[in-house]
């Protein structure tokens, strides 16, 4: 029973990683860039929903919507101001710019919201689920996190595979130049990808803070790095891969803590990652890159 409860904690943590990883992987798939500022957009999402709920007194759902709108606008703004001018630049230049954006967001958040930690109220209105005479207790936040994660992955899959914009995304990710020749507006497609990724970041922020209710300017940093790892784990650029990678990472982290060592849990997570990549050099579900001779 203890194992089961650890497993559920792992899936819950992993669901949050998965939602963040989706943002990384979509942007990577389309724009071929590692957006290291993604974790900090999560933090902004957390603060925005906090402000809406506590300062404005709005109901949770409206607050989440507010956070999503703000983050979407922020995501598009970042893309237009910082990344778009670098479309033709080497990918490392964009990576460094993204890091600059990340520093910027963290420091701006500290100046605006103060460095003091804030205690987040969970957006989940109901309590824990008690099973087997209280031997297995699953918190409401955990249940909602897992459900939301599944809903998001299904919705995203539909968007990417069934809609026109999804088709455009796939085309741009496959071959930018060819896509442009076919009349696809590359800039618009990339902007929309950023918009979706940032909206997802807002949801991730809300869920992260609901599950672990302390909010500070560096809240997004570490989950951001872990989720990036998860995205690579699953095969960066692949949406089901990000989901699988996120969930697995969460489970490994929790089980590593539970059965090996709480001190070295991070080392364990990263060691497993290395081993997996050695066996599957492009991640679990990543496409094998064929090199033309």
């Amino acid at each position, binding site marked *: 029973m203890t194992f089961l409860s650890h497993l559920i904690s792992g899936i819950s943590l992993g669901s949050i990683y998965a939602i963040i990883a989706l943002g990384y992987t979509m942007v990577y798939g389309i724009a071929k860039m590692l957006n290291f500022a993604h974790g900090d957009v999560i933090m902004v999402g957390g603060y925005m929903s906090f402000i809406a709920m506590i300062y404005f007194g709005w109901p949770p759902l409206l607050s989440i919507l507010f956070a999503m709108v703000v983050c979407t606008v922020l995501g598009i703004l970042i893309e237009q101001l910082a990344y778009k001018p670098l479309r033709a*630049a080497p990918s490392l*230049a964009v990576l*460094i710019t993204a890091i600059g*954006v990340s520093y910027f967001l963290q420091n701006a958040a500290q100046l605006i919201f103060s460095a003091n930690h804030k205690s987040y109220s969970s957006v989940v209105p109901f309590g824990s689920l008690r099973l087997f005479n209280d031997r297995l207790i699953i918190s409401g936040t955990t249940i909602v996190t897992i459900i939301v994660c599944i809903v998001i992955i299904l919705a995203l899959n539909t968007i990417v595979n069934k809609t026109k914009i999804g088709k455009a995304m796939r085309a741009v990710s496959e071959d930018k130049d060819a896509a442009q020749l076919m009349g696809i507006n590359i800039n618009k497609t990339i902007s929309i990808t950023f918009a979706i990724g940032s909206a997802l970041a807002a949801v991730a922020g809300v869920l992260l803070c609901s599950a672990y209710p302390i909010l500070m300017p560096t809240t997004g940093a570490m989950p951001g790095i872990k989720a990036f*790892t998860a995205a690579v784990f699953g095969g960066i650029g692949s949406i089901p891969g990000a989901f699988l990678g996120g969930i697995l990472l969460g489970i490994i982290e929790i089980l590593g803590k539970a059965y090996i060592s709480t001190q070295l849990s991070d*080392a364990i997570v990263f060691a497993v990652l*290395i081993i997996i990549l*050695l066996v599957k050099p492009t991640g679990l579900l990543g496409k094998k890159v064929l090199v033309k001779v």
Partner: protein
Amino acid sequence: MKYLRLRSKIDNWLTYGLIIVAYIVMRLLIAGGNISSTLQGQLVPITAYIVMAISLNLTVGVLGELSLGHAGFMSVGAFSGVITATLLTDAIPMTWLRLALAMLVGGLFAGIFGFLIGIPVLRLQGDYLAIVTLAFGEIIKNVVGTIYLGYDANGIQVSIENNTLQLGEGGKVILNGPKGATGITKLSSFNAGFILILITLFIVLNLINSKSGRAIKAVRDDKIAAESVGISIWRYRMMAFVTSATLAGAAGALYALNYSAVDAGKFDFNKSILILVFVVLGGMGNIRGSIIAATVLTVLPEVLRAFDEVRMLVYAIILILVMLVRNNKTLRQLFQKIGIRRRNSLSNNKEGDET
């Protein structure tokens, strides 16, 4: 070909010249007593960062593989260097010799780690390689932070995770888990840093311009073509990677022995990124650029202290703007109009993949 060789030679001498002139200027300033404590205190870290940047440039610029865990090698070098220096306190009274040995051991250990890590890392490519270096960096940080190491008359004792050291009379704890190493005898000096930079330049520039260097660049530009003409990809990639790690280790030892205390948490992902920023800003494969960028970006946050609480915000904005101006054609032309007319000069063009 002859012309190219001449040009790269002139270029290398320019790089050496830059370092030597900078050193002489600093020495004159110090001798004249015209130097602030702030700048003087930064000299050793600047030299360490320059070596870090040059060594990472070898991996990122010359070898063409993104490494996000360079601080891990710095960490290995730093702590093995500190341990060496502390253990040798009584045996070797000359501080310069102890420092040199510490840097040597630091470099050696980091090199060994570089080799061991290189075995799995270099089987991968692109962003997957990058993430594995990140993973190793994090593992090193995590593990070093749990090591307790001390010595007494009976020898060295090590324990992991929990402090179970049973040190006798006169024993000393060198590594104290998350507290890191404290009470380090400071050995590093500006002179030592200067010499380390010269050695680094000598190694790296000679490597780049040697037959092996050309092989490494051939591997970077086209693995398959390189392999088809009989270049052993693995060997040359490993050569660049291990050299890079070794130099980073020596720089780590220099860096750590400049402070009385150092902890494992210092050498984290952010530190790796910081060094990567030096390299990218200075230009991939461009050694002189790395030197200048490392210096400017190390001094910059101190200069920005005038901005008080918005200091790091300004730093972030400068970083973004520099990247934009440097890499965007329109912005660059705009700056060109208002800026100084560009000169035509003998400049290096070692940049490979970003034209």
